[in-house]
């Protein structure tokens, strides 16, 4: 349908629309459904939508998939008991002292000191204040209402805006916009619905994410022969590949199945292998150290990344805490311009270790079913600690010597999550379980977002967030309807993506002017 691809009606569509209008149809045909916004957007705004996309330099998206349901009222929009009136005992609000104000900022920072984490006998000591103080100027929180309380469905919708742009995920949009020409435009290390592809079949295969389960060992597969015992030298490999490809191309098998999508994809992927190898990613992305006999890199002709030592210092548990390993790899994927979109996030498995003896509780944020308050505090701390380390690395990494930009200047971190949590609790309980709730908010971190900003707000008497006008940012108390497309559009607006023809709502309020 031409309108969706180039913003214009084809002649056939125009005649059809006009005939329906003549016949008394009160609305333009369903051909235009979802495209109305782009027709009505003022021309100057349309131009503005394209402006950033033309600077020709890549931008990067890191999605931190906060699996299980990260509650915004247990972090930056927390509610004090004194604000909740007669409902205070029965809704999820905190003793006033635990909700810290942040000077000059609309954000709150929660402090929790719990003797145990549900039935797990480890203490939880979490304090969000340092993080908020450090990053408030790059921090935006947008309230939200989702449409599913099913983990997998909701996870995916947090990335697609519930089909806001033909079912594309944010990562696919970013890979399409800034990832073309990169070796692996999108890499996904998360779980569940966060790994699902979008449903826009018109996209090139290159934008779909490469799945990675073992971030510390995955780089070993980025060269077809290096490090394999007995594999020949590069010149022999090249001759062998050439012979194989020549025979393959002329084979009865290949000719018989020449129209198979499976074979076409395979051939195209095989043609890319040399390009991947030329970038020496088996070295550059390799965080693991040479540590014989368990990791005898040198013995097999391999090396650790030039950044390996720094990353191991930042993420000391990179090998046995998957989330740390993912964050380390995410940094390298951006630094070496391998990817434009990277997705990381804790999974539902228990991870032992760390100062508390536990790095990840079972079910991640969904542990809130068992102990909401301590579980949320624990997991928010985990997310924020990792984000802090990542941002520190990105800030220290130059992007453009001419402009002085760092990688951080060109990166947006979007903390996706499934949904919020229910607000009710037994009277004055500090240890209680919560269920899934559509009402929540999302966190974005970037110099590209309108920093130190809350879009929407919280009704302290219920603990529920209310919405906002995505274009102006004006809060809309009482607005409790779904705004998934606004969040989706907001991320892309902030990054300055070319949204022409998308039909997305105007989410200018998210963008740093």
């Amino acid at each position, binding site marked *: 349908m031409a309108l969706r691809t180039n913003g214009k009606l084809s002649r056939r569509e125009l005649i059809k629309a006009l005939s329906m209008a003549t016949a008394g149809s009160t609305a333009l045909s369903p051909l235009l459904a979802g495209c109305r916004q782009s027709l009505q957007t003022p021309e100057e705004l349309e131009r503005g939508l394209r402006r950033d996309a033309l600077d020709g330099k890549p931008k990067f998206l890191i999605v931190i998939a906060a699996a299980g349901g990260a509650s915004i009222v247990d972090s930056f929009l927390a509610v004090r008991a004194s604000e909740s009136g007669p409902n205070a005992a029965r809704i999820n609000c905190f003793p006033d002292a635990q909700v810290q104000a942040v000077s000059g900022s609309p954000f709150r920072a929660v402090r929790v000191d719990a003797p145990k984490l549900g039935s797990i006998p480890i203490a939880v000591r979490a304090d969000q204040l340092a993080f908020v103080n450090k990053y408030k100027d790059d921090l935006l929180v947008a309230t939200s209402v989702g449409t599913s309380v099913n983990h997998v469905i909701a996870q995916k919708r947090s990335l697609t805006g519930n089909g806001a742009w033909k079912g594309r995920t944010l990562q696919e949009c970013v890979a399409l916009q800034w990832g073309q020409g990169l070796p692996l435009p999108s890499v996904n290390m998360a779980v569940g619905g966060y790994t699902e592809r979008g449903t826009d079949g018109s996209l090139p295969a290159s934008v779909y994410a490469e*799945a990675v*389960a073992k971030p510390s*060992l995955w780089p*070993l597969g980025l060269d077809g*022969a290096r490090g394999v015992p007995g594999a*020949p030298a590069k010149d*022999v490999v090249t001759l062998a590949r050439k012979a194989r490809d020549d025979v*393959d191309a002329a084979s009865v098998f290949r000719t018989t199945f020449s129209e*198979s999508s499976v074979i076409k994809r395979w051939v195209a992927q095989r043609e890319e292998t040399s390009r991947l190898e030329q970038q020496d990613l088996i070295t550059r992305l390799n965080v693991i150290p040479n540590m014989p006999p368990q990791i005898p890199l040198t*013995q097999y002709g391999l090396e650790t990344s030039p950044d390996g030592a720094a990353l191991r210092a930042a993420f000391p548990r990179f090998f046995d805490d998957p989330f740390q390993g993912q964050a380390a790899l995410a940094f390298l994927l951006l630094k070496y311009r391998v990817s434009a979109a990277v997705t990381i996030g804790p999974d539902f498995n228990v991870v032992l270790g760390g100062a508390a003896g536990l790095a990840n509780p079972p079910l991640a944020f969904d542990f809130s079913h068992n102990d909401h308050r301590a579980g949320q505090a624990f997991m928010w701390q985990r997310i924020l600690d990792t984000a802090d380390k990542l941002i520190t690395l990105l800030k220290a990494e130059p992007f453009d010597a001419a402009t002085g930009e760092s990688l951080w200047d060109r990166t947006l971190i979007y903390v996706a999550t499934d949904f919020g949590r229910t607000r009710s609790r037994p009277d004055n309980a500090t240890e209680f379980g919560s269920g899934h709730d559509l009402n929540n908010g999302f966190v974005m971190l970037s110099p590209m977002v309108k920093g130190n900003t809350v879009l929407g707000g919280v009704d302290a008497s219920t603990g529920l967030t209310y919405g906002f006008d995505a274009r102006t940012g004006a809060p809309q108390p009482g607005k409790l309807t779904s705004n998934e497309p606004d969040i989706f559009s907001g991320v892309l607006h902030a990054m300055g993506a070319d949204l022409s023809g998308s039909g997305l709502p105007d989410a200018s309020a998210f963008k740093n002017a």
Partner: protein
Amino acid sequence: MRPELSTVVVALLLSACPPAKVDPPPPPVVMEQPDAGGLARSVTGNLRFKGPERLNADFAAALELQPADVCKELGQYACVGVHNLAMGGVDPYGPGVYEPSPVTAVTTPLVVERLAWGACAQRVDKDLVAPSSAVVFRGLPMTGPRLTKPDGAEVVAIIGEMTRRGLLREPYENEVTRYVQLAKDLDGSGTAEPARAWMVSLCFAVLSSSESVFY
């Protein structure tokens, strides 16, 4: 390549004891290459990628290796375990990947190659170290590290053997021609051990071909 093993191989080849004579494989029944224009083609494209377990099993069977020994990263970690997802496997207990990807990944061709190189290097080196009990690469006349006759009947026999083991059929004439050419190219390439390089490369080319990895 681990230099110490290569040195052992060369030393053995050049040793004073002549190798026991081992018969080469039977000559292949080379098939005439059909004309591509007249070839009936599939319209359904009914093919699937083998995945980690089948690839490992087939490579092991073709080269008479133990499945656990086919390929190990850093000499210790089974390649099909390390690269499980890239090869189309599942990982249900850890990251919760309950279903395999319906399509091959960008890195899948690379990890398939790693598996093939690992398996082929093992088989070639075993056959060269103990030619009297060679399984695949047997009866191949060599002059030091070179093939005595890169276009000889024994070379053609090995091409046939490898094709039968890897692709379950006899080779076509263009395949024989091309792999003989590979032998000549390697012989003239300046590589230190062109005979070994050819054996490993032939094995790699057959096992990592699309006909081998899809079914």
